[in-house]
């Protein structure tokens, strides 16, 4: 029914409205946001509208395979030269747009209650919507300079939000680091854009893509390296990861959801656009190796750093980059299965990491701290939050049947198939690193579970209450999505991932849709396709059947228990000193294992590596800037040698 009266004429305005409505909301909140009711109405209206518009576009773009082109102010191209700013939405843009809209909506609803403990919530929501609008602008835009502008809007909103709780220890410092290191990224993007403009005389993505790869002269190679690094900074790829950790720890949780789930995704989106689309450099095996290497390093370094953390949110922050590492690795394979796995992991990461940050926010809201060693036994006081944490933790650790597993499983297959295809055993080691990272992820969430939700309850947390309903509902929605995306991988592939993968691997359709049929054929010299868009799995996984079997066996066990008659019931012990823990005849008071002492056998064997790593993460901005500049230099040299 929707399709009948929502014609394309109306739909082509949806993308631009879904960006504008967020910015409009930001200004309206700034003006009228003093009263709580107005704030809730304005913010809800704008995030909901944005989400609904994105969701309505699924039918024409994902299923019918159309591409929406919109020229701002109707400045259509003249003689094949784009002169205005274009908004263009293909399946890839819509994929990221949906992801942004879901995270922004749920996190926004969560914030209403969560932010009541702070001063000036109107300013919070102004910045929040600016950040959301910036991100939305990046993924839907079809213009390189427009992307840069939105990138800046997004970055500055994020920096301001990081220091929003400026009374908090380290908040301003984190924002400062973020600003300094983040501006390396922005500078790179700006410089790259300038070089591209000088060479191609256009800023339109489609037009650049049609002519850039024809002549990869040194200037263009430099532009590629700069743009790649610039977006890499936004994705916090190693060695830019330490700023993310500080920023997440200081920022309010609902902002962490955006920084981790959405902000970093723009980096991933940028890297896809730059290397698959603009410069089409992903076909080169050197580029693939490079991206996979960066992905693996990010994955492993950050997961080992996460194991060492004592703060719930810092730990989550390191895991974000580790998961981004998975995505980059998968995308670096430049195979259909790799792209599908990478995009799948991107949406899964937004969901489970969003959920986990909101859980951390609830813990902070209820107890006033996220320091692991001060918490414990919260499952008794916050049972729903504990259940939500379990869902998030099992998802991120890749335990079937939750969503993290399916995407990781696809990535394992993609890397291993790549190993067989290229005959290089190196890619088999990539698979091994992925699996090891997944186990270490599990370990660090066992640590969080033990230190925050299980174990002994410290006396000062006796009065902790379950988080309010308005905070739990968005979390339950996210948890539900974590389960659904895990149980129905077929539907995910059919309606979201395959169309997005097609548009990553077939950029020519995008160009022709924007600049007219036949434009690519006339301008692009090398017409070879990056990779075939069909893929086969090396194995199989059917979550639904598994769940059915699980339920049948569960029923069987219960029937057996009833028939076998575990006649004696359960009994809770009355509180008595004799049930406490004793050691050598002395009563142990709060003898819970400290979070830093867990996994001693592992840490002992890796002590040199771990102490080197924690020394290297000195927290000094200068060091991090040095790492960044060195990394940029390495990438530049690498590109000049191999491209």
């Amino acid at each position, binding site marked *: 029914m929707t399709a009948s009266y929502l014609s394309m004429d109306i739909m082509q305005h949806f993308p631009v409205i879904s960006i504008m409505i967020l910015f409009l909301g930001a200004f309206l909140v700034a003006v009228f946001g003093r009263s709580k009711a107005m704030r809730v109405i304005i913010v809800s209206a704008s995030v909901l509208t944005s989400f609904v518009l994105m969701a309505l576009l699924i039918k024409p773009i994902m299923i019918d395979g159309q591409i929406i082109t919109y020229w701002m102010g109707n400045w259509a191209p003249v003689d094949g030269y784009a002169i205005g700013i274009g908004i263009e939405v293909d399946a890839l843009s819509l994929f990221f747009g949906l992801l942004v809209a879901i995270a922004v909506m749920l996190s926004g609803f969560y914030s209403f209650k969560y932010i009541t403990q702070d001063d000036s919530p109107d300013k919070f929501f102004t910045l929040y919507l600016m950040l959301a609008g910036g991100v939305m602008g990046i993924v839907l835009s079809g213009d390189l300079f427009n992307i840069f502008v939105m990138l800046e809007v997004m970055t500055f909103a994020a920096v301001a939000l990081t220091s929003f709780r400026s009374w908090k220890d380290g908040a301003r410092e984190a924002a400062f680091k973020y600003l300094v290191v983040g501006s390396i990224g922005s500078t790179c993007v700006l410089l790259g854009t300038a070089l591209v403009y000088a060479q191609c005389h256009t800023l339109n993505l489609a037009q650049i893509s049609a002519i850039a790869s024809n002549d990869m002269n040194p200037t263009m190679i430099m532009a590629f390296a700069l743009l790649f690094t610039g977006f890499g900074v936004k994705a916090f790829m190693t060695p830019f990861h330490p700023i993310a950790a500080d920023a997440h720890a200081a920022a309010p949780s609902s902002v962490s959801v955006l920084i981790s789930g959405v902000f970093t995704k723009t980096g991933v989106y940028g890297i896809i656009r730059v290397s698959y689309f603009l410069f089409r450099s992903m076909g080169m095996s050197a580029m693939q190796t490079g991206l996979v290497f960066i992905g693996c390093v990010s994955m492993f370094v950050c997961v080992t750093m996460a194991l060492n953390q004592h703060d719930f949110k810092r730990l989550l922050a390191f895991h974000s980059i580790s998961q981004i590492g998975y995505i980059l690795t998968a995308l670096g394979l430049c195979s259909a299965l790799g792209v599908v796995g990478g995009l799948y992991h991107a949406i899964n990461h937004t969901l489970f990491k969003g959920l986990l940050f909101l859980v951390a926010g609830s813990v902070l809201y209820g107890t006033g701290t996220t320091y692991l060693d001060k918490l414990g036994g919260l499952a008794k006081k916050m049972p729903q939050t504990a259940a939500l944490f379990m869902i998030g933790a099992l998802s991120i650790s890749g335990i079937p049947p939750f969503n993290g597993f399916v995407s990781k499983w696809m990535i*394992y297959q993609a890397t291993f198939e790549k190993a067989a295809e290229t005959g290089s055993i190196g890619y088999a080691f990539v698979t091994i690193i992925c699996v*090891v990272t997944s186990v270490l992820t599990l370990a660090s969430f066992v640590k969080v579970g*033990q230190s925050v939700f299980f174990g002994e309850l410290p006396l000062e947390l006796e009065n902790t209450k379950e988080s309010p309903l308005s905070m739990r509902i968005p979390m339950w929605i996210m948890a539900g999505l974590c389960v659904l995306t895990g149980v129905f991988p077929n539907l995910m592939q059919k309606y979201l991932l395959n169309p997005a993968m097609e548009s990553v691997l077939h950029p020519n359709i995008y160009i022709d849709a924007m600049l007219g049929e036949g434009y690519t054929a006339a301008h692009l010299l090398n017409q070879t396709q990056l990779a075939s868009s069909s893929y086969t799995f090396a194995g199989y996984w059917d979550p639904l059947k598994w769940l059915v079997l699980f339920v049948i066996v569960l029923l069987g066990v219960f029937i057996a228990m009833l028939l076998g008659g575990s006649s004696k019931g359960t009994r809770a012990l*009355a509180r008595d000193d004799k049930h406490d823990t004793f050691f050598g005849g002395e009563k142990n008071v709060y003898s*819970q294992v400290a979070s830093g002492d*867990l996994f*001693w056998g592992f840490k002992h064997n890796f002590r040199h590596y771990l102490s080197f790593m924690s020394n290297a993460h000195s927290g000094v901005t200068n060091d991090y800037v040095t790492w960044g500049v060195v990394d940029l230099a390495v990438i530049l040299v690498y590109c000049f040698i191999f491209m």
Partner: protein
Amino acid sequence: MSILKNVVYVLIFPGLLFTAVFGLWLAGVDRKMVARMQKRIGPPLMQPAYDFFKLLGKETILPDNAARLTFTAAPYVGLVSLVVTVLLIPLAGFQVFGGVADVVVILYLLTIPSLALIFGGSASGSPYAGVGISRQMVTIMAYELPLIIILLAVGRLAGRGYDMGVTFSLGQMAEFQAANGPNIFHWSMIPAALAMLFVIPCEVGAHPFDVGEAETEICEGPLVEYSGAPLAVFKLSHAIKMFVMTALFTALFLGGITTGMLWLDIIIVLVICTLVTIISMSLAHAITARLKVEQVFKFYWTVVTGLALISLILVWIGV
């Protein structure tokens, strides 16, 4: 009718009832063999089964510190996921539920019971359990690395004939072995099979790798607060895990032995499972003392991983 048949498969053979009985029997064999190797008479073969029923009849006590739902639910989740995993591993060409999970999924499904133990122990609130789960997690980290390398090596060997060049499918691995003889007779697979023999006791939590449940040091770690039916279920899971891991070993390295009669093939597989139990678990149990946790980790990430890597490299260069 077919639904009824499937329910019988799930609940009777090779599902819940059979795995429970055979698992407990394997545990009995293990205890008996260890006793004989140490020149003791040892308990009767069905002793683990007697223990199981005895525990079922005991009262369950909930500790004051426990997070109750997790504490009570964890053993059952672990048991059920383990039984489902058995259904997904082919027993000599007898696989009722093909196409559900490949070998990498099984690797992950096998972590669910361990996780159930970890979160159950964690939920009990005891500091002994805290130490126990920490060690348990380290053993998981220890064996997971060699195990994935073993699976990749087998997957590469068996997958050569297919267009992807690799396979994770247990069905295709069985086909490959039916055509080319059991994997263990390939030179390149011998180190991997050896590594797998080391992985089995660590995954099961058998002596000398049972650092997580060390009775003498930390009072069975995660199990310290458990009693009655949940404890019985954990003990049952432990026994079933022996069956799962030995069956997986058989499927990976000793598949394709066929006599033409399915029931005879299944019996052969069960005999092999028993033999593997004796070799990989009883023997090591009888002759070694428990390792320290950092030694377990080091052993698996050096020696066992090294063996598995040798296999992977040999397969890769086509030996």
